């Protein structure tokens, strides 16, 4: 059976890929003609400033190529019948007026179309044609006619060589049987016009954050240059937060992402316009995610971004287009002039959710988002239908991606059959050994991206003069589908056996071209990428010199290509079991989910009982009972035949590699050896034991301790809570994310049990993100007093015998106050586990600067490690709440399933290899290898036995440390051999400028 994924944004994409990779057939329904969602509009992503398109585009292509994914674009679900495991859905496919099979994506139609329509992708800041592709890297790369704009002139119809334009295309209804559904339609952005006082839509230089994002983007309206409406480069930019969020009149909840993206916008503005001044106006700076606080600190310290803890009252436009901003800060009013205002608009529930709630029969919450449960954050109210991404609450990309993976795990519970692409799909590989290199070169214009700086025509001509090049051509977009066909044709027509593409960075499109090679029976490793965009046309201006450099780069690429060899993928058998380190919430959720997917697992818990931190949580902010939940979980885990729990045990050693580990577990009953294919790290974290504020005094306790007391019925009469204890300081620069929520949870509980109790909260920024904001509101309304403090002027806790008093500065009153509460409660940081370092060494996986585990990529691979086969679950990743922990744990299962569902794993072939004839078995490489992938082995020869180095292919990462260590070049990394690089270097130097 198959799964229906509704929505082709990053959440839908990730869910589809996880499902497809674990062998489940996926129908991906997207309402627009192309997938990519909101992320495709982003320029960079926080907190690494990775180029959004660079990391998204490989995923888009993967979706487009995956044999288990069928994209149904320009379509909506119109009806649903049946129940979990057996749904019948009706999908309406709206006409594209272009034949998907015939369109090559060449774009000639769009250049000829006489219509100028507003470009939604660029948020209305420029125009597109009526026949259009939303953005250049879009998938599927098929043009579509916007019938509402089309004047029916017939130019495109006549221009299309492929005869793809079809004005008579009709709507189609498709019926599908699916076993489960993932709802990921994303969110809608707030309409800034609703906040009339900011003048959006009236003042020309007030723009929204998504418009600013497009301005910043290299593919935006001004190719990455930031201009105002009048073409001036702004020198003073104001960014106004909470536009359409935390606002009683519009949306009372917090949109969670705006503070960090505003920080990003500020940094990027500084990078684009070095002398620009950027002010951010926010009530609280909510940079609570992993690495976000550090990001904001960098913005302040390195980029000089100015944050105002202020509320903007209104904006007035001056005659010159500049804007006067009136704002309130510390009880005073100010007015300041800026030349550009960016409104950080928030998320709203997608308008389609109403429709889906009807069609699918699922419940929505008070804000119109999909209703979920704290202990089942992925499930909707209807079994078999799951939710991912912004559909259930505003969230950022990594959270959405994790949730998408989690939903994939849940959805695949219902998909009983799994199918994998068969190798025979590709034609048999042509044997090129012994053939002289016959190289085909394709030089890409990349529209104007390359062609405007590098003379691509001359470059293609130059390529023809290079040795072994038998074919060279230049193409508008090397990555387009028609170029792929062109490459294939050239390979066949000219008997090419090596392909060189001179285009953008290999980090994006290399897999695409490799696959193209495979489709015509050429080994994918006979491909070489030459980067003439990011590392040539984009960084140079002098056309002649840039062209010369491109020639050198191309000549080096061709020289390397000459020496490329066909390589075979490395295949490894998979042991379909998992080792889970840590038996807390994350570990147990992971194990149970794995069991549901039919995978056995071993939980290793160092304590004598399961449960971890959850054992100390007695109530949730939304009134659920975690202890009951925990009991149920433990019972399920301990009675599940597919789960084996080792309590009071530690993992002693982990040997092997992805798909094939052998580990020793030290248990009270001796050492047990287990074999498994994957590892999930769910070691958790713990509450910080404060050193500050006289902690240790009986009246100074932490939030966890307070909760324990309240649970026992000891409700205090007056409490003063201090936030950010041990977080956001020099030692621990990160935000612990959960403490604001815990403080409010406990405050509300105290108020509930003892309405007369006095509760003070001293805070720096209240970070009650998402729907938590409503509890913040509630607490305020119930009389909890929130007082802001700054790190420069922190509260003092003075101990006087049994008594404590707290001295703090009140900004509004402008004076120091003294409180004598019954209890001082410290919202202590969440800190990494002490033994993280041991685990990190054991598994050879890295920790981040704060001591939490470091994922492979903070944006799109939140639960993977860069070492394949090892995954990350729960708060070992970073501090988070129960639903987030569950989501992250399910995500790790989903990621693990992409591997454990397979019998065999196919790995990249760029591994080290020993040329035995040259090896002297000196062992220098053996000792140098960071993953112990090399061993000295006896080889039988005709004359006896010889010792030689030998590489364990499945372990080898292909880093090449060995190859540089070998004094005779006997060990090389395939694809980066001694001579390939040497040859490239030689040729790089031979072209004379």
């Amino acid at each position, binding site marked *: 059976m198959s799964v229906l994924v509704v929505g082709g944004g990053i959440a839908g994409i990730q869910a589809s890929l996880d499902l497809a990779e674990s062998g489940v057939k996926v129908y991906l329904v997207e309402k627009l003609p192309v997938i990519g969602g909101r992320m495709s509009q982003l320029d960079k992503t926080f907190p690494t400033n990775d180029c959004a398109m660079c990391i998204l585009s490989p995923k888009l292509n993967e979706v487009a190529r995956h044999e288990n994914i069928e994209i149904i674009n320009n379509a909506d679900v119109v009806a649903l019948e049946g129940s979990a495991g057996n749904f019948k859905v009706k999908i309406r496919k709206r006409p594209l007026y272009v034949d998907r099979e015939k369109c090559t994506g060449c774009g000639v139609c769009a250049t000829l179309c006489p219509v100028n329509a507003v470009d939604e992708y660029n948020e209305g800041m420029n125009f597109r044609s009526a026949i259009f592709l939303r953005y250049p890297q879009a998938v599927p790369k098929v043009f579509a006619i916007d019938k509402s704009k089309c004047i029916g002139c017939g130019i495109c119809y006549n221009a299309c060589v492929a005869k793809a334009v079809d004005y008579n295309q009709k709507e189609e209804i498709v019926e599908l049987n699916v076993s489960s559904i993932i709802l990921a339609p994303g969110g809608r952005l707030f309409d800034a016009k609703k906040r009339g006082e900011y003048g959006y839509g009236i003042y020309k230089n007030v723009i929204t954050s998504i418009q600013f994002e497009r301005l910043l983007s290299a593919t935006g309206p001004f190719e990455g240059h930031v201009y105002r409406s009048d073409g001036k480069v702004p020198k003073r930019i104001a960014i106004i937060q909470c536009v359409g969020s935390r606002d009683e009149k519009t949306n009372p909840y917090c949109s969670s992402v705006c503070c960090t993206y505003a920080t990003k916008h500020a940094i990027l503005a500084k990078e684009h316009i070095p002398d620009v001044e950027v002010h951010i106006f926010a009530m609280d700076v909510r940079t609570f995610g992993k690495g976000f606080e550090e990001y904001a600190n960098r913005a302040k310290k390195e980029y000089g971004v100015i944050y105002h803890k202020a509320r903007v009252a209104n904006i007035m436009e001056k005659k010159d287009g500049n804007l006067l901003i009136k704002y309130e800060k510390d009880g005073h009013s100010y007015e300041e002039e800026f030349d550009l205002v960016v409104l950080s608009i928030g998320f709203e529930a997608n308008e389609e959710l109403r429709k889906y709630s009807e069609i699918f029969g699922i419940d929505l919450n008070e804000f119109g988002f999909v209703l979920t449960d704290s202990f089942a954050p992925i499930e909707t109210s209807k079994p078999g239908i799951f939710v991912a991404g912004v559909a259930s609450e505003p969230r950022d990309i990594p959270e959405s991606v994790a949730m998408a993976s989690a939903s994939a795990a849940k959805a695949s519970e219902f998909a009983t059959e799994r199918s994998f692409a068969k190798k025979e799909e590709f034609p048999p590989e042509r044997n090129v*050994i*012994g*053939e*002289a*290199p016959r190289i085909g070169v394709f030089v890409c214009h990349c529209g104007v991206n390359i062609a405007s700086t590098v003379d691509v025509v001359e470059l293609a001509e130059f390529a023809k003069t290079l*040795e*072994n090049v038998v074919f060279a051509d230049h193409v508008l977009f090397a990555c387009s589908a028609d170029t792929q066909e062109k490459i294939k044709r050239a390979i066949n027509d000219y008997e090419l056996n090596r392909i060189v593409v001179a285009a953008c960075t290999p980090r994006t499109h290399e897999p695409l071209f490799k696959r193209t090679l495979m489709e015509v029976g050429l080994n994918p490793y006979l491909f070489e990428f030459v980067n003439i965009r990011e590392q040539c046309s984009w960084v140079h201006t002098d056309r002649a010199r840039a062209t010369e450099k491109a020639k050198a780069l191309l000549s080096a690429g061709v020289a390397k290509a000459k020496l490329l060899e066909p390589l075979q993928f490395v295949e490894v058998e998979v042991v379909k079991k998992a080792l889970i380190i840590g038996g807390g919430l994350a570990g147990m959720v992971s194990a149970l989910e794995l069991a549901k997917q039919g995978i056995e697992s071993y939980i290793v818990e160092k304590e004598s009982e399961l449960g971890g931190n959850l054992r100390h949580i007695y109530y949730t902010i939304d009134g659920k009972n975690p202890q009951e939940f925990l009991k149920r979980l433990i019972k399920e885990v301990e009675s599940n035949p597919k789960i084996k729990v080792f309590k009071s045990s530690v993992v002693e050693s982990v040997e092997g590699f992805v798909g094939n580990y052998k580990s020793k577990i030290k248990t009270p009953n001796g050492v047990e050896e287990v074999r498994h294919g994957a590892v999930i790290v769910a070691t958790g974290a713990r509450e910080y034991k404060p050193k500050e504020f006289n902690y240790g005094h009986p009246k100074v306790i932490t939030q966890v301790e307070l909760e324990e007391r309240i649970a026992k019925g000891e409700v205090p009469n007056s409490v003063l809570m201090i936030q950010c204890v041990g977080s956001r300081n020099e030692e621990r620069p990160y935000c612990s994310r959960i403490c604001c929520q815990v403080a409010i949870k406990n405050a509300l509980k105290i108020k509930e049990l003892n309405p007369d109790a006095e509760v003070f909260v001293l805070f720096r920024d209240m970070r009650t993100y998402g729907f938590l904001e409503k509890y913040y509101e509630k607490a305020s309304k119930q009389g909890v007093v929130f007082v802001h403090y700054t790190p420069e002027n922190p509260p003092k806790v003075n101990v006087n015998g049994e008594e404590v008093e707290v001295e703090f500065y009140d900004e509004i009153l402008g004076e120091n106050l003294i409180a004598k509460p019954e209890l001082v409660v410290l919202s202590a940081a969440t800190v990494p586990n002490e033994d993280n370092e041991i685990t990190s060494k054991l598994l050879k996986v890295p920790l981040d600067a704060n001591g939490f585990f470091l994922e492979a990529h903070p944006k799109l691979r939140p639960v993977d490690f860069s070492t394949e086969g090892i995954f990350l679950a729960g708060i070992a990743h970073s501090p988070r709440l129960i639903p987030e922990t569950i989501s992250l744990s399910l995500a790790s299962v989903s990621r693990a399933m992409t591997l454990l569902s397979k019998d065999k794993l196919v790995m990249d072939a760029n591994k080290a290899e020993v040329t035995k004839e040259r090896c002297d078995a000196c062992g220098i490489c053996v000792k140098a290898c960071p993953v112990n992938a090399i061993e000295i082995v006896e080889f039988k020869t005709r004359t006896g036995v010889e010792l030689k180095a030998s590489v364990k292919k499945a372990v080898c990462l292909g880093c090449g440390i060995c190859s540089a260590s070998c004094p005779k070049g006997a060990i090389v990394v395939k694809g980066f051999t001694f001579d390939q690089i040497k040859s490239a270097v030689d040729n790089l130097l031979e072209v004379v400028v």
Partner: protein
Amino acid sequence: MENPYVPYKAQITEVKDEVKGARPIKTFRIKLVDRDRFDYKSGQGCLVSVFGRGESWFTIANSPTRPDLEFSVLKTGKVTAKLHEMKPGDIVGIRGPLGRAFPLEDWKGMNIVTIGGGIGQTPLRSIYQYVIDKEKDYGDLMIIYGARTSRDLVYKDELFKLIEDGYNVQLSIDNPEKDWKYFVGFVPDNVKRLKPNPKDTIAITCGPPIMIKITLNVLRELGFREDQIYTTLERRMKCGLGKCGKCRIESYYVCKDGPVFNYAELSAMLEKV
């Protein structure tokens, strides 16, 4: 030759695939540019020069009675790999003729048996072409030739044509193959089977060392004297002029004093080859 290190400019006029696969062989036909072909005799070689890569020795594969120069190249190293990439019209350098030829003049009136294996057929081709072109000067001609598989046979078309024309051509391959009409087995076995008569006969054998060794024994058993048996030797060669010392065996420079030797000469050497 004024400066024997400086090659003549030559142009490839034809390239023929003889054997494909991992160890391919191609035959090149070349024409000297700006001058006539130099005089040479069967068994002599030339050094083909590819600037940037170096020079390689090839025995001239066609008879001086035929036009142009031909040589067959097994792809093994840098120069040969480059040659394999070349096409008609490309320029190479050529130095020659080099080395000692077969004493074909002395063999007039004798029967000729050529026994070849693999690419070792090259010098033998030059001989049989010569003998065929000057048929009346010589006695019977027998061409014995074999390779590992039918795909590894070089000059196939020419040999099949000779069979059609009634020449005594005895082909063999090592292992049975479908549609193979000729002998199956090693070349020396084929010689043993065919039993060429040693009387007034010169046997010339060329091929892999092990084949030559066994063939030699077979010929001796059949009654051939050492001075009736000729072969060509292979050594690393650089200058082709008997100067650089690489191809030296004792005081002989294979490039200059060879590559043609008869077995009487070889067995007189201390260093066994």
